[in-house]
């Protein structure tokens, strides 16, 4: 065999390896989803969604879990969205290139790399103890909001950066102030990108477990929260709790709850991808 033939064979070999590796990830994902569906799909019905937790697996439901997740999401978004978008606007439009803004930048990329469980410890000490919020929805939402700030900030900055300077110049030329320019021109043009980032951040928050456990979300809450100061549980913690139990009935429950959690996550990611595509197509300056 000549050298060049050998090389061509190796080249083809690597091509197959590449396809195999790419498919490996997808096959694992497929096996996994298939397994979960086989375990849990038959368990899902209205009663499962409407029932309170119970010591008997066939009676237990996820009502407190999904309502808790919903409460957490709403408050996390209310806290994180204005803060993160404002910070993103500041960094992009007012920040300049000074030492202060490069410090902010390093800081944000560092925050993005902090393990989520550390945000739990932060929340436990600051919100639960010092601000005396207790193991409440609000304390959990604050911890998660800080966790997703970097994600939304980065998305906001990227979206704002795609607005060309000529748009700003035109707005200034018409006599608009800086804030008027940002509010009336820059923000509307970058909303698609910002919302994409927000949805991805929220979908991350839905799946977060560890920080909420640390903040004191409980595995067993008899009632759905009715105020932000109430104790709560969320879907992932309910799943964690059921996975940790030996009875088969709870494993089935966990699989059923996972199907619903995955559905929520995938739908959100789908919306984000759809928004991103639509927004990219719409804008051609």
């Amino acid at each position, binding site marked *: 065999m000549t050298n060049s033939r050998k090389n061509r064979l190796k080249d083809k070999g690597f091509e197959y390896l590449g396809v195999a590796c790419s498919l490996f990830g997808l096959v694992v994902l497929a096996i996994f989803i298939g397994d979960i569906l086989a375990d849990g799909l038959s368990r899902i019905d209205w009663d499962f969604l409407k029932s309170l937790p119970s010591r008997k697996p066939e009676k237990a439901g996820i009502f407190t879990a999904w309502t808790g997740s919903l409460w957490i999401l709403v408050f996390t978004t209310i806290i994180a969205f204005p803060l993160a978008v404002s910070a993103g606007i500041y960094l992009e439009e007012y920040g300049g290139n000074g030492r202060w803004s490069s410090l902010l930048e390093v800081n944000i990329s560092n925050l993005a790399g902090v393990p989520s469980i550390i945000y739990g410890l932060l929340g436990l*000490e600051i919100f639960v103890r010092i601000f005396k919020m207790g193991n409440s929805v609000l304390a959990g939402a604050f911890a998660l909001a800080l966790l997703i700030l970097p994600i939304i900030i980065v998305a906001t900055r990227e979206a704002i950066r795609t607005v060309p300077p000529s748009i700003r110049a035109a707005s200034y030329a018409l006599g608009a102030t800086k804030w008027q320019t940002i509010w009336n021109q820059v923000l509307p043009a970058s909303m698609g990108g910002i919302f994409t980032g927000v949805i991805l951040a929220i979908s991350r928050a839905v799946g977060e477990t560890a920080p909420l456990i640390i903040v004191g979300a409980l595995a067993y809450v008899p009632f759905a929260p009715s105020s932000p100061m109430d104790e709560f549980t969320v879907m992932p913690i309910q799943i964690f709790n059921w996975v940790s139990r030996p009875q088969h009935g709870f494993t089935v429950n966990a699989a059923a709850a996972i199907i619903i959690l995955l559905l929520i996550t995938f739908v959100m990611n789908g919306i984000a991808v759809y928004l991103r595509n639509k927004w990219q197509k719409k804008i051609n300056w």
Partner: protein
Amino acid sequence: MSNKNTEKIIEWLLRLSALVTVLTTIGIIWVLLSESVSFFQQVSIIEFLTDTQWTPLYKDKHFGIMPLVSGTLLTTFIAVSVALPLGLVIAIYLSEYAPKKFRKTVKPLLEILAAVPTVVYGFFALMVVTPFLQTIIPNLSGFNALSAGIVMGIMIIPFVTSFSEDALQAVPKSLKHGAFALGSTRLQTSFRVMVPAASSGIVVSVILAFSRAIGETMIVAIAAGQQPRLTANPLVPIETITTYIVQVSLGDVPHGSLEYKTIFAAGMTLFVFTFILNNISFWIRKKFREKYD
């Protein structure tokens, strides 16, 4: 003029929002430090670093962090040795070989792997991967570092792939064309030109994969066990730093007790690890950017 004042007020509000991110960092460091300091007033730092047992929740208390660190590193190394080869091969394939259509479909599908909540991966490791591995390795415990590590590795494949692919894409096309013009195959071009040229970006992806795996919580909390053990054996139950923090938080530990402080000392250790790794990667990325711009 009132208009000017509004502008100023708005700028200050925006600046305050940006300041929240700095306060978050200060808050994290302050919380971890203050609780750790009061922990180290009761436990010597030498015992913390050298004792080979971690038993703060038992009668005979030992406060050696090493078993937790070894558990963390064990699962991390398993995860990275799964994610690195797979992620890198996929990155090279997608960037240098794959038809555009294949790339466009496969990449978003692979990113789903990163979007799945980690508690779900924990279920997968415990209920699917461990039983499967037990058919091959009969003496594998129900809780073990191996399946937790493997599943964690699968989860971080998209991180390695997307960072490495970005690095490969950033290599000037002229280098690639030069190699092709000299008669190299795609494989030779990839491994002798593209990968070396993109090495700093690839190193960054590896470091971030490590950092991500060290901080991962739910997979190991569910599937790796809760037994602090100084071992490199992936077949037995171990405990990671993150799992310990979860374990204590699930129990009823009164504020101010030594047990309560241990989770902050453990958290501090975790933070130091990831902080160093993240900053190394940040530094490399900065260097790398200078190289090609």
